[in-house]
């Protein structure tokens, strides 16, 4: 992804949702453990274009962090799926 014309920039004020702040914090913490910004960006750039366009900024970040954790063998996809089911049930 990248290099495509995006038209005019619309500057709008917005506040961050709590989950977005948490993703940011997680990103800083993982950075301290050696997950570089380049590693995260590689995962973001690997997103299929449709997914990239559909996701918000912090959705792309959390996907990148998750990919890094899976690729590094820190969590498994099975553990992730189990946790996501739990969170969905909790509502």
């Amino acid at each position: 992804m990248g290099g495509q014309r995006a038209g005019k920039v619309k500057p709008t004020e917005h506040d961050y949702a709590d989950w977005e702040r948490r993703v940011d914090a997680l990103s800083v913490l993982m950075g301290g453990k050696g997950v570089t910004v380049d590693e995260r960006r590689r995962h973001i750039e690997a997103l299929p274009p449709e997914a990239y366009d559909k996701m918000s900024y912090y959705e792309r970040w959390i996907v990148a962090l998750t990919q890094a954790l899976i690729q590094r063998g820190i969590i498994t996809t099975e553990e992730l799926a189990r946790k996501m089911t739990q969170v969905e049930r909790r509502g």
Partner: protein
Amino acid sequence: MKAYPLGHVRTPYYIRGHSGVIERVCGSFPNPEELAQMRDGLPAQPLYRVRFMQKDVWPDYGGNPADVVEIEIYQHWLEKA
């Protein structure tokens, strides 16, 4: 600027293929392409601040013709103009 490199290249697309001049040497830092692949990025690569003319970068640039855009680019992402 190399126009279509492979790998995790951080050079913005809008500047690829354009010519600029070296404004300063920023030092040497681990190679982002290697860091992106979970390797150590060593040996460190020289990083340059490169100056481009805005009017050369944007076909319909309406600002001051003396305006510049400066971008920090690693040596191995540059080629001699």
